[in-house]
């Protein structure tokens, strides 16, 4: 049994319309996503804007209401728990995309980082202060920062504060929602490497949401590629990058820039090839609504959304 398992998750948002605000239709933000994450691994969710990757992550935390499907954490169904049964939240934390809006501007770093500690652990004031300073040191900020306000930090530093807050309760799983996309490229690597460091140190499991394939390749052991609420391809990082099967994945992989100028011709050629294939065989990969098909297993490490003809 996997550590965290999502079974056929659906998150639909109603579209209200008409005179009485009836529900006329649904936006299928997430439409039948299944995945399994093993302990200690990094699972990457990739997709373009609006493909439902963030919604999937938020549904695991209970921030979005699950329409259908199951989320099983450590053998326990956590799909729609409420009230006192929310204690699993202690184990699953989130790093938010925007380091600016995810920190309350009116609170000091001490208050921000100590918030989860105050909620779940009964510690004295001195102990809390000590723990917060330890956490800040762990994320590479000076312990004196505790009296500062978020606006006094740079984007990268703010994201580290967000990380410190997320790891304060020693969670088992961290859902990282595009943790570096709002950051300067020069700081991205810094935060990513740091995240890898604490992963081995604290034995963390990451669900890493991103649209940046370079970052995903660097971080993840396993990847799921989403398109319009559905999976198009799923597998180990090697399988996806070396042997992409779905045309959507191929296009994504083709779009990764190569830094070596000698390969420029080759890259261009490859890209044009993929583009013609896309134009010619679009209907083989997407149904009449332009959505992906059900996943077909092609090897034990790789499954692709293809029509049921093979």
């Amino acid at each position, binding site marked *: 049994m996997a550590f965290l398992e999502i079974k056929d998750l659906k998150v639909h948002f109603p579209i209200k319309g008409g005179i009485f605000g009836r529900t006329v239709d649904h936006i299928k933000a997430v439409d039948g996503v299944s995945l399994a994450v093993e302990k200690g691994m990094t699972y990457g969710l990739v997709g373009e804007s609006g493909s439902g990757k963030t919604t999937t992550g938020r549904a695991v935390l209970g921030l979005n209401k699950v329409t259908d499907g199951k989320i099983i954490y450590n053998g326990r169904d956590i799909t729609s728990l409420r009230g006192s049964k929310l204690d699993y939240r202690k184990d699953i934390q989130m790093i938010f995309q925007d380091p600016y809006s995810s920190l309350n501007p009116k609170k000091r770093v001490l208050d921000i980082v100590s918030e989860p500690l105050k909620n*779940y652990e009964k510690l004295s004031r001195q102990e809390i202060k000590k723990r917060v300073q330890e956490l800040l040191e762990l994320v590479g900020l000076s312990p004196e920062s505790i009296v500062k306000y978020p606006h006094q930090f740079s984007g990268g530093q703010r994201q580290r504060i967000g990380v410190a807050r997320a790891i304060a309760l020693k969670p088992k799983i961290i859902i990282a929602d595009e943790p570096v996309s709002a950051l300067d490229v020069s700081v991205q690597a810094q935060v990513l490497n740091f995240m890898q460091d604490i992963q081995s140190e604290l034995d963390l499991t990451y669900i890493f949401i991103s649209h940046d394939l370079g970052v995903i390749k660097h971080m993840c052991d396993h990847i799921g590629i989403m398109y319009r609420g559905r999976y198009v391809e799923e597998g180990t990082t090697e399988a996806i990058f070396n042997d992409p099967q779905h045309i959507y994945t191929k296009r994504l992989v083709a779009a990764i820039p190569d830094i070596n100028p000698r390969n420029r011709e080759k890259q261009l050629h490859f890209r044009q090839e993929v583009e013609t294939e896309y134009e010619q065989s679009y209907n083989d990969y997407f149904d009449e609504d332009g959505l992906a098909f059900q996943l077909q297993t092609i090897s034990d490490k790789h499954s692709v959304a293809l029509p049921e003809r093979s």
Partner: protein
Amino acid sequence: MEVNNMEMEAKTQESSQSPSGLIILWREIVRDKLALVSLIFLVLITTFVYGIALFLDQSEIIKVDLFAIHEPPSKEFWLGTDYGGRDVFGQLIIGTRNSLSIGILVTLMTGVIAIVFGLVAGYFGGAVDNILMRILDFFMVLPFLMIVIVFVSIVPKYSILSFSLIMTAFLWMGKARLFRAKALQESELDYVQAARTLGTPSIKIMFTHVFPNIYSIIIVAMTLALANNIGLESGLSFLGFGFPESTPSLGTLMSYARNPQTLEYRWWIWLPAAILILLIMLSIRNVGEALKRATDARQRRG
């Protein structure tokens, strides 16, 4: 290196003093001389009125004295007397105190209702928001003046508190709507979502996360409402639906001017009250406008 660190330290020290909303509000008032003068005037008049009122005997002031009707200002009666021979200066002081008390009381009570209502509706949204807003709409359509008039006729003897309560019941809606809109906006931000994933209870999120981020708007709305409430009380008293003559109010003094004789020949009865209402309301508005500018960084002067 050492020097560099020291400099950094000094810089962070400096900037760490800037974020507080209260300091921004205060700086804006100091920059706006008119608002500063208004604020000083308000503080002086309030301490003066509440201070003097301690030494005045209300029952003595409202006692009718037939031998001193319509006396012009003199050493004994600093601002003359009215048609019942009652000292206008005493009535002015006690009246200002009553008007201010009602204004402040109503503002505070409507403020508390509006904050709770607005925060709950804005934070939870959805069905809760819908139900609360329909309740608010119901209160909005009730005819405020008519109900106050009915209230005045069925309650034989009312106090500052009961009068404030009836006004409060019909004056919280506008602010509640404003606070709800702001709370809704703020609740969408990631830090509120983050607080939820960190296991903070909803009530705590509302009052420790959302509230501090909208409180400058609350202060502005309450200040402007204070001026309105004082004006409203004076207006009701002027129309005869406020306090009876036995409880002095600025509006009651003004209402004596409805008598043409008084209006033309006995200025000392109504003119001081009129000027005082004008000055108090103008001053509060000046302060309020300065605070309003302070909440919008683009309009700020300071």
